[in-house]
């Protein structure tokens, strides 16, 4: 297949998904905390920004976006996984390998972490769409921790988006793309450090967006053979407020095509954001609509896409763009992001050293949430064991791996424990009973004490189990999230 002639092939975006953490930090609460020293932040204090829970990071959010993308029965299994982010928790331990393990992808997978700039996601998307043959899963995920009282603290949000790219019956195809690479430093962040250092916004606007974006867009439009005025959706995250209309005007895109940046609902999810905005656009677009995606950062990426007959043209917002839960406690945000060191008491001193050899033995069990199903009696159990737990069976070595992550379950018993240390007390946990009769003692995630009751249905979510600050390690497992009633 000719990678320069995408429209003539069946290669394209086969599925999309995105994930926003449940918590939405109220910007007014942030600005109120800083009013004494930075009253100017008031101007940005509108709406909410998404906020990772204490047990979420770029890996866990990527897993959730990936699950939503691969969830459809029709989606083919990917052979390649790219995880794009500037905030991956590990500098050396393939973050994509954790995601692959949690998604239950086969070990024959080719997986890559991609970072370096906010273009990590958009550049990876261009490469995936211009490739051939392989089915590629691309996930972009970001959890930035800007300095308190910076504008970035208010602008940024946490979240992830995923696209499955390959041959088949795509929702959208690539018509043309272009990249421009320049060491234009509107902001930077040293490796291993939180918080960007950025230059004057007017300079970024005048020398950056105004001069670097238009040539890349023109090149992409030319490659696509599409005039700017024929673009139906202009997808561009705004590093600066209201830079979208400026760029639209410069490149000749109609201003009414500018896609909502989700500023008031999530904030800018960094490398994930162009993909997240695209995921939302694709969820709503009808057939034969043309989409221009632009991402700025150390240059610029531009993609021109066209939707196919598979595009649904739905008016409804995608489910992942729900209202979440408003968080007005800025101190909680500071604590979750490690910027406020609270007195947690001696119970927090427990050493969470992970035995890496044990973790490898348990990799499928723990990261893949894989139990065992007895071949003799059908009993599903967690963890898998040599002897079946069913007292009427006790067959030996009969269990086949059985993934529990996507199985329906409900609460059998619960408590809200104020004694055990948790970064967000109380520690809520209980016996979880799966519809297949497996039973696991699990932590509950993303809920309040009032959400817990015997019989409440649960979804499984992949989360940080323990942090090991002494060694810079973190381990992951699944938690049970109560399905909240409508309106909660």
């Amino acid at each position, binding site marked *: 297949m000719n990678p320069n002639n995408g429209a003539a092939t069946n290669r394209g975006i086969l599925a999309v998904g995105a994930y926003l953490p449940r918590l939405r930090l109220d910007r007014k609460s942030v600005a109120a905390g800083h009013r004494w020293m930075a009253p100017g932040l008031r101007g940005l204090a509108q709406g909410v920004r998404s906020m990772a829970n204490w047990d979420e990071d770029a890996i866990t959010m990527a897993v959730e976006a990936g699950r939503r993308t691969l969830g459809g029965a029709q989606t083919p299994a990917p052979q390649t996984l790219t995880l794009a982010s500037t905030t991956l928790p590990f500098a050396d331990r393939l973050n994509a390998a954790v995601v692959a393990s949690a998604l239950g992808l086969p070990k024959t997978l080719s997986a890559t972490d991609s970072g370096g700039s906010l273009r990590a996601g958009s550049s990876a998307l261009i490469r995936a769409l211009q490739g051939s043959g392989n089915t590629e899963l691309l996930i972009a995920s970001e959890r930035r921790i800007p300095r308190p009282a910076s504008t970035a603290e208010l602008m940024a949000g946490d979240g992830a988006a995923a696209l499955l790219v390959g041959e088949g019956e795509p929702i959208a195809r690539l018509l043309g793309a272009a990249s421009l690479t320049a060491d234009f430093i509107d902001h930077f962040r040293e490796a291993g450090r939180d918080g960007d250092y950025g230059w004057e916004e007017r300079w970024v606007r005048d020398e950056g967006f105004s001069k670097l974006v238009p040539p890349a867009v023109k090149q992409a439009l030319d490659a696509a053979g599409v005039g700017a005025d024929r673009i139906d959706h202009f997808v561009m995250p705004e590093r600066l407020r209201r830079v979208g209309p400026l760029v639209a005007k410069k490149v000749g895109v109609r201003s009414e095509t500018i896609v909502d940046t989700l500023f008031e609902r999530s904030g800018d999810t960094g490398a994930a954001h162009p993909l997240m905005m695209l995921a939302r656009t694709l969820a709503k677009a009808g057939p034969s609509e043309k989409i221009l995606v632009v991402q700025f950062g150390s240059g610029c990426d531009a993609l021109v896409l066209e939707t196919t007959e598979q595009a649904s043209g739905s008016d409804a917002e995608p489910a992942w763009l729900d209202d979440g839960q408003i968080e007005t406690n800025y101190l909680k945000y500071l604590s979750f992001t490690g910027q406020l060191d609270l007195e947690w008491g001696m119970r927090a001193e427990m050493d969470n050293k992970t035995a890496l050899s044990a973790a490898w033995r348990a990799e499928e069990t723990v990261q893949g949430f894989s139990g065992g199903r007895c071949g003799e009696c059908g009993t599903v159990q967690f963890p898998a064991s040599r002897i079946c*737990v069913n007292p009427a069976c006790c067959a030996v070595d009969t269990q086949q791996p059985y993934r529990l992550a996507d199985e329906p379950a409900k609460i059998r018993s619960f408590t809200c*424990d104020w004694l055990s240390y948790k970064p967000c007390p109380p520690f809520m946990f*209980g016996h979880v009973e799966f519809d297949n009769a497996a039973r696991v003692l699990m932590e509950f995630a993303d809920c309040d004490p009032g959400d817990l009751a015997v019989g409440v249905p649960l979804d499984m979510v992949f989360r940080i189990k323990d942090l090991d600050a002494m060694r810079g390690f973190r381990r992951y497992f699944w938690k049970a999230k109560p399905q909240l009633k409508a309106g909660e």
Partner: protein
Amino acid sequence: MANGIRDRVAIIGMGCSRFGERWSDNAEDLMLEAFAEALADAGIERQKIEAAWLGVCLEENNVGKTAGPLAQGLRLPYIAATRVENACATGTEALRGAVYAVASGACDIALALGVEKLKDTGYGGLPVRTRGVVADLWMPNASAPGAFAQLASAYQAKYGISRDELKRAMAHVSVKSHDNAVLNPKAHLRNRITIDDVLKAPAVAEPLGLFDCSGVSDGAACAIVTTPEIARELGKRDIVTVKALQLAVSNGEEAQFSNWDGASIRTAEVAAAKAYREAGIANPRESLDLIEVHDCFSITELVLMENLGLSDPGRAPFDILEGRYDRGGKIPCQVDGGLKCFGHPIGASGLRMVYEVYQQVLGRAGERQLGKADIGLTQNLGGHPHQNVCAISIIGRLGA
């Protein structure tokens, strides 16, 4: 089937230290306090002890590994000594070792001693600790109250009882134990509390509040055992024997398989049935004069009344509220204050329970002496409701 242990072994001496926050004492001091009392009670020389079992649960806290701390602390003369551990049922495990050694004929006189020195932790409650390199990867790092609180939510759901009704019955459990402990000079907590105090106490793990939780204490308890024949030779007239010793250990069914209701301690049901059979007790509600159960939390004591066959399923809250397990009730429970108020030095607790039954049977319980006390049951639980070891012993007058 084997004949069991009934009346084959006699307890000739027991001791128990004062339980509490023994800031000025080491484990060695606690062991010696219990041992000295037991030795004097038995009326033997220490050289007569041929084998010993030491029960310690959290050896890393103070005591150390092996039975060495016992042999060194008591200067035992190079005898066989073994350290045992079965979580909070460790004390009864030490007794099992000594009793079975005598019953087997391997030795004439054996010692069981349980000790725990917990109050060097720096904070209240049991020390936080790892579950091991594999379990820590996925198992919630639950506190003991959190794990036992699960019983309450499952019990409410199973029997359709409201949280407030259940809380009231649980409060009665704690108030009763505080009342009893006032009469016990060795108890850790010797103050009366009211139902209102319990209901208004700070939450520890919903629905357990502060007064639903047992104390964490330092202490030691000790038993010296031999055969009834040797007991007679030693001049003992009133002989207390072991009627039953049973232990049931979870095999993972409760934790992993959906055939457990979450509202009961299954091991207690199994061990109790075997213990009644071993002791020749057909109707425990009529035969037992007192019981000492593992009331680590009020809800634990409540469900145990059903699991031991003393209350009908779903009826324990009502039996409790009617006073059936009060000091003046049909089956007095925790007349010494229980774990709740006597205290809970883990390794000692199982032997402390036996100590109380032994004193009651011998009529030596002082102010808290019950009228008829020929036979009593102790139930000692280690672990969490879904994964535990449950030890039950029945102790009574020889011939009863």
